């Protein structure tokens, strides 16, 4: 009998992309943050690195696109991307879309005040066809 390979564990990847801007109208520094969350299969550190780098690439693009489209802001400053430690996903099912939550932080009276922006999703991978190529 053919031996089946061990299934790769599905891990929960959490990425934060953020950038600064200055609101000239309100004279306030503003930080935009986007939190990406997706479950993907990865066993080794190399696989985790590969998924992280793919997520970073797509996340940066999404960050620029969304902010330009919805807030009409063209970011000149760099977008910082950071990852949290991957955890084992509760449901061992891979996801095609990453969920994205967005916050805008405003500096008011020397304190950061968060304002929630609409959440959404970002396409990460292509869906696998059930019956192969047609």
């Amino acid at each position, binding site marked *: 009998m053919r031996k089946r390979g061990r299934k790769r564990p599905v891990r929960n990847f*959490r990425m*934060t992309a953020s950038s600064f801007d200055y609101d000239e109208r309100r004279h306030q520094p503003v930080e935009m943050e986007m*939190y990406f*969350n997706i479950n993907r299969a990865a066993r080794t*550190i190399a696989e*985790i*690195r590969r998924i*992280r780098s793919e997520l970073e690439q797509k996340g940066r693009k999404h960050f620029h696109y969304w902010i330009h489209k919805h807030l009409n802001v063209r970011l000149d400053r760099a977008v910082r991307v*950071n*990852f*949290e*430690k*991957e955890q084992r996903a509760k449901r061992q099912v891979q996801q095609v879309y990453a969920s994205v*939550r967005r*916050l805008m*932080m405003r500096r008011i009276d020397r*304190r*950061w*005040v*968060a*304002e*929630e922006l609409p959440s959404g999703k970002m396409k990460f991978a292509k869906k696998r066809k059930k019956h192969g190529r047609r």
Partner: protein
Amino acid sequence: MAGDRSIPSTKVLMIDLDITVDGSWLRHYRRMVQRVLESYGLKANAIRVTPSRNRGYHVRIYLNKPVPAETANMLQLLLLDDHGRVDFNRARIKVGFAEWDKLFEDPGR
């Protein structure tokens, strides 16, 4: 309203210590953590200290019982968490963001 959303309590405190110190100081730090928690009727089941990406340490404290998010953030401040991080966490908690406690790590740590 977003702020009305309740955030689940947490049993883990995550602290970003932005300084590298001698091992003996870390032993004092662990003792101080236990004392601070005791004064709030809490106990640390485990304290895990790992080196952070740039400098200093990431400290994870596993509590014996869950605490509300605001209390957890306040305890993190008392246990020398990065001040900027505490302020950002406070703002995230206020709008009901459940994953308010962010601690970034390299893979394989």
